[in-house]
């Protein structure tokens, strides 16, 4: 301390070792420390502390930080499409459109249409019955003719005898 113009308390040795002191301040502090054992000891202790702290090594990061272009940030295509169009208004419009379509395809028919459908069904049924009857009569006639032919042959044979 002797031989200097300032007392030890005026020297900020922490600022000195941390590199926060300007060049003139550093030169003045170094000149003081050269003559002051107490300040040299303080300086040495601080440097030793910082050296010890510097032995703590940086660690490698265990896994890399997910980049902004990675999958976790990127929704899949269907998610993006869904998000692009989905909204409460869109949902309401979908419900209304569905109801209109169901009504269009499943609504009840009018009376005229029902009448026409009944008439068509009756006509078809009558035609089927008539066709069946005609076929039955035809079969009976053919059977009758065949039996007459047989009887005629039998009678003719008896007559010739």
């Amino acid at each position: 301390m002797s031989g200097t113009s300032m007392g030890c308390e005026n020297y900020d040795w922490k600022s000195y070792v941390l590199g926060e002191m300007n060049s003139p301040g550093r030169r003045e502090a170094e000149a003081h420390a050269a003559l002051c054992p107490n300040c040299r000891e303080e300086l040495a202790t601080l440097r030793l502390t910082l050296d010890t702290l510097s032995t703590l090594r940086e660690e490698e990061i265990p896994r890399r930080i997910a980049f902004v272009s990675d999958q976790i940030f990127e929704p899949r295509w269907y998610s993006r499409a869904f998000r692009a169009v989905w909204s409460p208004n869109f949902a309401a419009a979908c419900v209304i459109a569905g109801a209109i379509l169901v009504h269009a395809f499943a609504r009840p028919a009018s009376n005229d249409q029902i009448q026409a459908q009944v008439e068509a069904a009756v006509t078809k049924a009558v035609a089927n019955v008539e066709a069946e009857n005609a076929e039955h009569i035809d079969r009976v006639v053919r059977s009758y003719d065949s039996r007459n032919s047989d009887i005629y042959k039998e009678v003719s044979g008896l007559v010739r005898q």
Partner: protein
Amino acid sequence: MIFREVEDRDLIAKARRGDVEAFNLLVSRWERRIFNYLLRLLANREDALDVSQEVFLKAYQNLPKLDAVEKFAGWLFRIAHNEAFSLLRRKRPETELPPGLDLSGVRPAETGARLLPLELSLAVESALKLLNDDQRDAVLLKIYQGFKFDEMAEILGCPVSTVKSRLYTALELLKAALAPSVLRGES
């Protein structure tokens, strides 16, 4: 170092214009520093990883708000500091150590033997845990990340005088916790 800064500046400018790859490169450059800062501050590896992820996500989202490109490092560490302290407040508000803790019983080298590098490293880790969160944060930003006092004030959101006070108190505590053991080891 200047070349690196110019490159970072260019990457930041590109990322601000929406270039994702440029931001990815920034992440790869800064992730280790941010992770180690958070690891020492939070003293938990998984928390440090999770918060690191949050930091870069927030950085990407808020990059257009960055005022000056040359302040990217401080801005990034400010996000990290805020996220870390948010987690610390949520997780362990009741366990924060009071400042001015008595260190007489926790000096790491009572035996007087020379410490191996691994032991020294463990002693430093133990000593850092003796500091309160604010003091440890100041030490990490100054000694391990090399920020200036005014940059630290911006990161921590407090006056330079507060930064110096926290750091000087922390150094006194660390000096007491570490210097005797090292001196005994060398004697």
